[in-house]
């Protein structure tokens, strides 16, 4: 039926609302045409006289109301109206006749008309007043708007559902609204909405009954597919299905439905994003089957439901995604801030657990044998986890072992068999399913995160992937922490090396450097014992420094052992390269006896080369099970280089000192010999000359008095020269020193001193020539100096030979204030003493006399390493 837009009739009404006179005849159309027009009009037309009686009706009026024309004529128009409005209509009619116009009737009202059989239907009525010879009449045009209302009603229903969907109402609420709206719109007796589950069962999500009676099956019930019922049909065909009669094979569920008196049913599938998600079913008690258009009309609703579900899923996903991103970001922030790993572990287990919606999450570190130790744990309930931090779980037929072996994520969807006693607490806590994802740090398998649930359903298939985001962050945190530890270790090592280098640069004695290095190395490498040894002739080693983390060193300083056997010092000696022993065998050789006795398990040794020559070795010992790390040899190298430098420096210094000493000594000796020889040969010459002169004198004639006199003068002069010569020589070259040693020489010095000398010489044995010379010259110079500057009345000289060397002390009671200033004579003495490797200490407070303490080394060896 054509539908006039309502605007047209009102427009028409506005334009012409005056009564119209009907012309008896008109020029445009013939009466017959007009008659046909009215008769055949698709709208029902009736004419009502002023008394409200029907004067005429067209065919459509007959059809619409179900009366024959004869039955209509003369009846009150109220016959065509529902009983409830008849009385009111009388009044309206009267009012209209007062002011008749062409207009719609009952604007804004839901007008209803009544059929012969008593049923009502919605109508639109427009009125046109008519003035005829027979009196005033009203033409009423009646239009059946049932279908329009039905369609409008459907649209409204759909719009209401769409609004719910758009508002993002939870799908469950949408289901209930859909079943109700669809049921009303389709005029069904019952509707239901169900979902297909992955396990092949169907879950009832919503149900509506037109009467308001409860649905026989509670919402949430589940039933198996199978049988000739709607849900099975739809699931198989993925097409709408209808049952216009129920056979025997309808399944258990349908039996309940039958109790409602259902005769026919139609079901339409709900597809979400291309997948069969569920179905909407409508049921009717009517004898007649549901109209053919029911499937199509249900489609609008199923689409809205699908949209709602898809939206909800998308929102859930989005929210889940957003939550997950936020959780990952929180963890990443902790990692970036360098939070200690333990805190990161705790945070990860909590965030992952919440995001994944599981009941427990644990984070564990693997041991080499596949066992794992819990380092982080979280429980949804907030209570203690069945495996507290620190628990060690052995390898076995369980999830973490599976992950350990495969290095891939794994899952336990059902617990079969015995997981071993260690995992009993998990079962006791109700764990039924779990997923484990490995944590790999820098390519090495480090540990595992396990999320577990107490629900029967397996964890979603994307759990592994989602956990992976967290495991990556954990791996980063661990790698960062490891890197920080490594950095700290490197920094410590650098600091230790710097400390040792400073000692070396300060020219500290090699023994001190050795001791410092063994200690620094021990601390930096974290070993139990360290030792430094020197290789001696005859294939032996002598320990020059040793350190122990606790207790006494493995091999005490000074120990000498023969090389030989499968031990580290021997290996380094023979190959000249670093060596290590990871386990001592029997008969490891004398150089290993002490180490084995101390419980050493592994040892590493590195050669010390001084100027290209193998000098000794440094070794470290560990009593731990695990062998010393591979990096040990390389790390030791830095220290051994410093040691070699220290030794080379010391040897160079010693060589320098020795050469200076040699220079001084040689100079002294040479000078001594030259002068002695000079004097002695001069003296010899003079004496010989004098003798010759005497001889000549003897031949002179007695009367050559003058000549004899002159000769005598010469002889006297020679004698004087000899005396002078002797005087000079006495101070320069102490003959007594070479022949008698220090005591007689110093005694002679003392005797000749202008200032009385009290001498205390406790040296009876002969000392090395250069030492005696040096001591003699030192005392001579000191005495000279004192006599010249000190204005002393007495000088004390004490000489003593002992362990530390030759010690000479010269004290006077003069006015003090002696310094090393230029020209004081003392600086030369100091230089000489120090060039010989000795020490010169001067104490000369003004007014309190002067004291000099000189020490000269007695042995070559002591000098070399100083």
């Amino acid at each position: 039926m054509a539908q006039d837009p309502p605007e047209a009739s009102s427009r028409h009404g506005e334009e012409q609302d005056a009564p119209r006179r009907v012309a008896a005849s008109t020029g445009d159309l013939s009466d017959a045409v007009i008659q046909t027009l009215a008769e055949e009009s698709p709208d029902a037309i009736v004419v009502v006289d002023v008394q409200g009686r029907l004067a005429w009706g067209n065919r459509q009026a007959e059809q619409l109301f179900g009366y024959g024309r004869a039955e209509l004529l003369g009846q009150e128009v109220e016959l065509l109206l529902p009983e409830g409005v008849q009385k009111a209509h009388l009044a309206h009619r009267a009012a209209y006749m007062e002011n008749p116009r062409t207009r719609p009737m009952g604007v804004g009202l839901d007008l209803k008309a009544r059929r012969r059989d008593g049923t009502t239907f919605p109508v639109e009525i427009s009125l046109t007043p008519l003035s005829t010879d027979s009196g005033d009449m009203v033409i009423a045009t009646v239009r059946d708007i049932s279908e329009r209302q039905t369609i409008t009603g459907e649209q409204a229903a759909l719009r209401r559902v769409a609004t719910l969907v758009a508002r993002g109402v939870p799908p469950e609420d949408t289901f209930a609204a859909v079943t109700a709206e669809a049921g009303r719109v389709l005029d069904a007796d019952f509707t239901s909405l169900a979902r297909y589950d992955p396990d092949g069962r169907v879950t009832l999500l919503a149900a509506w009954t037109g009467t308001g009676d409860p649905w026989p099956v509670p919402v949430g019930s589940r039933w198996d597919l199978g049988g000739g019922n709607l849900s099975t049909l739809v699931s198989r065909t993925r097409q709408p299905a209808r049952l216009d009669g129920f056979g025997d094979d309808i399944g258990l569920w349908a039996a309940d439905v039958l109790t409602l008196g259902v005769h026919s049913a139609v079901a339409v599938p709900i597809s979400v994003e291309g997948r069969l998600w569920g179905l909407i079913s409508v049921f009717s008690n009517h004898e007649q089957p549901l109209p053919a258009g029911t499937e199509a009309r249900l489609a609008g609703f199923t689409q809205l439901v699908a949209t709602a579900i898809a939206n909800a899923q998308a929102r859930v996903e989005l929210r889940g995604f957003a939550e997950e991103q936020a959780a990952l970001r929180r963890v990443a922030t902790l990692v970036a801030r360098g939070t200690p790993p333990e805190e990161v572990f705790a945070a990860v287990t909590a965030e992952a657990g919440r995001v994944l919606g599981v009941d427990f999450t644990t984070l564990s570190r693997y041991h080499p044998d596949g066992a794992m130790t819990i380092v982080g744990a979280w429980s949804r309930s907030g209570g203690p986890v069945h495996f507290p931090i620190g628990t060690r779980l052995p390898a076995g037929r369980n999830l973490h072992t599976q992950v350990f072996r495969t290095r891939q994520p794994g899952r336990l969807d059902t617990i079969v068999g015995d997981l071993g006693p260690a995992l009993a607490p998990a079962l006791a806590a109700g764990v039924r399913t779990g997923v484990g994802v490995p944590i790999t740090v820098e390519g090495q398998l480090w540990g595992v995160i396990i999320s577990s649930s107490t629900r029967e359903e397996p964890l979603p298939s994307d759990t592994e992937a989602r956990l992976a985001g967290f495991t990556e962050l954990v791996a980063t945190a661990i790698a960062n922490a490891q890197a920080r530890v490594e950095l700290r270790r490197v920094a410590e090592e650098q600091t230790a090396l710097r400390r040792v280098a400073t000692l070396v640069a300060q020219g500290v004695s090699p023994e001190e450097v050795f001791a410092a290095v063994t200690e620094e190395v021990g601390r930096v490498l974290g070993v139990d014992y360290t030792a430094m040894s020197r290789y001696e002739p005859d294939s032996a080693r002598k320990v020059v420094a040793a350190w122990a983390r606790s207790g006494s060193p493995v091999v005490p300083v000074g120990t000498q052992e023969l090389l030989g056997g499968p031990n580290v010092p021997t290996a380094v000696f023979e190959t000249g390269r670093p060596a290590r022993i990871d386990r001592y065998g029997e008969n490891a050789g004398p150089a290993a006896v002490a180490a084995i006795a101390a419980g050493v398990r592994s040892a590493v040794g590195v050669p010390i080369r001084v100027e290209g020559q193998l000098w000794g070795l440094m070794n470290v010992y560990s009593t731990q099970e695990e062998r010393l790390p591979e990096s040990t040899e390389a790390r030791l190298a830095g220290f051994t280089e410093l040691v070699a430098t220290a030794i080379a420096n010391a040897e160079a210094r010693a060589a320098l000192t020795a050469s200076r000493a040699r220079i001084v000594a040689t100079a002294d000796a040479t000078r001594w010999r030259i002068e002695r020889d000079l004097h002695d040969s001069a003296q010899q010459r003079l004496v010989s000359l004098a003798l010759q002169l005497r001889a000549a004198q003897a031949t002179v004639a007695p009367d050559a008095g003058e000549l004899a006199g002159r000769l005598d003068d010469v002889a006297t002069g020679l004698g004087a020269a000899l005396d002078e010569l002797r005087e000079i020589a006495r101070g320069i070259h102490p003959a007594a020193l070479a022949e008698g040693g220090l005591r007689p020489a110093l005694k002679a010095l003392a005797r000749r001193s202008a200032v009385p000398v009290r001498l205390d010489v406790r040296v009876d044995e002969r000392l090395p020539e250069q030492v005696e010379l040096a001591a003699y010259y030192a005392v001579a110079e000191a005495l000279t100096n004192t006599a010249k500057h000190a204005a002393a009345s007495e000088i004390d000289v004490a000489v003593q030979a002992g362990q530390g060397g030759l010690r000479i002390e010269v004290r006077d009671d003069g006015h003090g204030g002696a310094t090393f200033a230029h020209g004081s004579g003392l600086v030369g003495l100091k230089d000489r003493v120090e060039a010989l490797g000795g020490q010169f200490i001067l104490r000369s407070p003004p007014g309190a006399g002067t004291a000099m303490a000189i020490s000269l080394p007695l042995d070559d060896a002591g000098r070399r390493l100083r």
Partner: protein
Amino acid sequence: MPGVVIAVDTDDRMREIIVKVTEVPIRVGLADDDVLLREGLASLLERSGFEVVGQSADAPGLVALVRERRPELVIVDIRMPPGHSTEGLDAARQIRSEFPDIAVLVLSAHAEVEHAMDLLAGGQRSGYLLKSRVIDVEDFIETLKRLVRGASVVDPALVAELVSARRVDDPLDVLSPRERQVLGLMAEGRSNSGISTELFVAEGTVEKHVRSILMKLRLPETDDMHRRVLAVLAFLGAR
């Protein structure tokens, strides 16, 4: 064999007279590695009435010479080959042990107390002189004769050094200057008569001084000149 055999315990004086009377030249052996000096010394001695019975350039040669020729006096340089240290002293010791009657004079370029004491410990008729003493011919010859007669001789320069050593709380402070003088001469090996001649005082005065000195220094009184010299030397050396 020329020369006079004289009994060991004869009085010095007697010996002096006998020697003077007999005018037998004293037989001398010389040892010095310096040829020039040795020859010079030899001619000096010859001129002075000594008979040089042999010369050697080293200690073994001297010992052989002494054994063969039995001189009365040996003059030896303290420093000789091979070591050029105290070979002369060692030779002197050896000679003294074999022939205690032979007078030994050791000449040295330097005067060392220890050598003097070492030498004199071997008994009287030991002398220790600086080489330069030979120039003063008269004194030298006189000293030689004294030595042969049984005296002990210590070079005055050495004694002077010993005596003049400065000491705080000097034990020599108790001596008068004259006594110090006498002490020095005692240390040189002079006899009382020698001292009195030297100082131009009466021998009795010298004896008095000597006694005073020995007492003040708490040294043993002795008539044995040699022992006296040793004691004084030791005292001075230890001071």
